[in-house]
C-alpha cells in the first residue's frame, strides 16, 4: 500500500471547515507518506493554500462554482483522478452529507473499501482499522478496510482539530470535469440558509440544548434559547415542537430530523421517544430536565434533574452566566 493520503476538504464561508481540520489531523496520524489536500467549488483556489497552515505542503483546487449547484456525483470523477495523481492509498473526508455522498460514489469510482461515521482509525499493514457507532449509538463496530485504496469519513467532533504548523503550500489546479447530461440536467433552484439563532449550527455545535412539548408554548421557547446562549450552544427541538410550528423543522433532532453528537446534549421537557433518541444518543454527555421521573429520556441520560423546567432552566442559565462571568 503506497502510503500517501488525500484529504478532501469542505469550505465554510470561503475557509476550510472546522471538520476538515479534524480530518487533516487524522490523515497526518495515519499516512506513512505525504498528505495532500483537495477542495472543490467556488473559492477553492483561495482556500486550498490554507492547507499549508496545518502542515500540508501540497493542495489541489477545483475552483468551479458550477460544482456547488451540481449533484454530488459530479465530484466523484475529479476526486478519484486527483487521488490517482497523488498516488493516494488513503482518502479522508468529514462524515457530513456531502462527505457520505462522496464516499458512496468513490467506493465505485475509485474502487475503494469505505466507511463513514468513523470515530477511531488506525493503520495496519494492508489497510485501515476503524471503529464506528452503529444502531444509533447502541453498539460500536470495528471493521478492517483492506486493499490498496481505502476511504474513510470521520465523524465531526470525534477527533481533535489539527494544530497549526505552517509550511509553504503548493496549489495545483484541477481541471473542471466534463459532465454528462445526466449530471447537468438537475437544477438547484434555491438555497435557504438554515434559520437559527446567533449560536453555532446544530450539527457543528459542541453543545446542543433542545426543547420539547414540555415548554408548552412557542413564547416559552426563549427559556431554552437563553440557556443555549449562555453556553454558546446550538438550539434543537423535538418533533412535537416543530410539528406544532413553534420552531422551523430545521431545528428538529431525531429520526426525521438531524442526528447530532455533541459533547453535551441537554434535553428540556422532552419525553425521549425512540425517534428522538436515535438522533442524539451518541452525544458524549446527556442531561435531561423533565418533571416526570419515569420519562424514558432519563434512561439514556447521564445526569437528570426531575423538576419543573420553568424553575430549573432559568436558574441554570443564571448559574452558567455566573460561572462564566457573563
Amino acid at each position, binding site marked *: 500500500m503506497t502510503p500517501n493520503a488525500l484529504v478532501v476538504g469542505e469550505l465554510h464561508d470561503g475557509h476550510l471547515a472546522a471538520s476538515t481540520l479534524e480530518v487533516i489531523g487524522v490523515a497526518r496520524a495515519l499516512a506513512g507518506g505525504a498528505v495532500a489536500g483537495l477542495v472543490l467549488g467556488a473559492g477553492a483556489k483561495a482556500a486550498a493554500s490554507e492547507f499549508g497552515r496545518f502542515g500540508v505542503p501540497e493542495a489541489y483546487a477545483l475552483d468551479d462554482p458550477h460544482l456547488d449547484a451540481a*449533484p454530488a456525483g459530479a465530484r466523484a470523477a475529479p476526486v478519484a483522478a486527483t487521488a490517482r495523481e497523488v498516488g493516494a492509498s488513503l482518502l479522508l473526508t468529514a462524515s457530513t452529507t456531502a462527505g457520505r455522498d462522496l464516499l*458512496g460514489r468513490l467506493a465505485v469510482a475509485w474502487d475503494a473499501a469505505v466507511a463513514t461515521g468513523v470515530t477511531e482509525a488506525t493503520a495496519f499493514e494492508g489497510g485501515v482499522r476503524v471503529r464506528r457507532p452503529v444502531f444509533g449509538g447502541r453498539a460500536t463496530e470495528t471493521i478492517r478496510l483492506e*486493499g490498496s485504496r481505502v476511504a474513510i469519513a470521520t465523524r465531526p467532533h470525534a477527533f481533535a482539530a489539527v494544530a497549526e504548523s505552517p509550511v509553504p503550500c503548493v496549489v495545483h489546479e484541477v481541471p473542471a470535469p466534463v459532465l454528462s447530461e445526466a449530471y447537468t440536467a438537475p437544477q438547484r433552484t434555491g438555497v435557504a440558509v438554515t434559520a437559527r439563532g446567533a449560536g453555532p449550527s446544530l450539527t457543528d455545535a459542541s453543545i446542543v440544548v433542545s426543547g420539547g412539548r414540555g415548554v408548552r408554548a412557542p413564547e416559552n421557547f426563549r427559556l431554552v434559547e437563553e440557556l443555549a446562549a449562555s453556553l454558546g450552544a446550538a438550539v434543537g427541538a423535538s418533533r412535537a415542537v416543530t410539528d406544532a410550528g413553534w420552531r422551523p423543522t430545521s431545528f428538529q433532532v431525531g429520526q426525521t430530523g438531524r442526528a447530532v453528537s455533541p459533547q*453535551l446534549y441537554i434535553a428540556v421537557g422532552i419525553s425521549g421517544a425512540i425517534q428522538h433518541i436515535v438522533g442524539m444518543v451518541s452525544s458524549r454527555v446527556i442531561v435531561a430536565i423533565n418533571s416526570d421521573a419515569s420519562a424514558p429520556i432519563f434512561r439514556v441520560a447521564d445526569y*437528570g434533574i426531575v423538576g419543573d423546567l420553568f424553575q*430549573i432552566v432559568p436558574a441554570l442559565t443564571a448559574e452558567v452566566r455566573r460561572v462564566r462571568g457573563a
Partner: protein
Amino acid sequence: MEIVVCVKPVPDAETRLRATSDGTRLDPEGVKFVLAGYDESAVEQALLLKESIAGSRVHVVAFGPAPRTEEVLRATIALGADQATWVDSGADAGAEPVRAARAIAGAIASAPHDLVLCGKQANDDESGLVPAALGELLRVPEFSCVVDLRWDSATSRFRFQRPIETGVESWSAPAPLVVGLQQAWNDPRTAKLPAILKSRKAAIGKVAAASASSESRVVAERFELPPPRTGAKLIEYKTPEDAAQQLVRILREEAKVFP
C-alpha cells in the same frame, strides 16, 4: 412511473442486541427483523407517488439472507407494493453496504426505474453509502437527505428539498433519479389484516447476487455493546438554584464538558 424501492431488513428497535460468541458481529439469533425506519418512509413515499401519478408501479428490492429478507418484502406487498425482488445474499448476512449496492444495481439495472428510492441510511449500519453507490453504479444522479419529493407532470421533473448542514436546498431534476429519503409526506401507513393474509401467498422474484469483482474488502472484526446505560444520575436538590449549581459543577468538574 416505475418506482424501485430498496429496503433492508434490520433488527426491530426494541431488540436487545448481542454479539456472536466470537464477538465479531451482531448475533441474529432470536432477533426480529423489520423494515428499516427510513425505508418505511421510502415505501410510504413510493405508494403516495403511485397514487398520484396514473400508471405507476412500485417494485421493492431487498438484498439479504433467508428468511428475513423475504418476510420484509412480504410486508411491503401487504402495504401495496406491486412487485418484490429478493436478491439472495446467501450465507453472507448482506450487511456490507457497498456489496449490497452492487447486488441491488445488478438486479435492477435492466429493470425499468424512473425513480430509485432508498432510505437516507439504514438503522443498523447507518452508513448512508448505498444511495450514492447505487447512483454511481447506475450512472444516475443521486440526492441524499431528501424531503417533500414531488413529481411535476407539467415539466416532467421531480421537485424536492434537502435539509443539509448549511441550510435547505431546493432542486428540480428529471428521471431517472436515485434518492436517499429523509422523510415522506406522511408517517408510514400500516397494513390491513386482509392484505397481510394475501401477501403470504404473493410471488416474490428471487435472483442470485452477482459475484463481487472488487479487490477491496471490508471485514467485520468486533461488535461491542457499551456497558448498559444505568439510567441518569438524578440530582437531589432543595431549590432550583441548588440543582443548577450542582449540575454546573458536575458538568465542569466531573464530565468536563465546559470550562
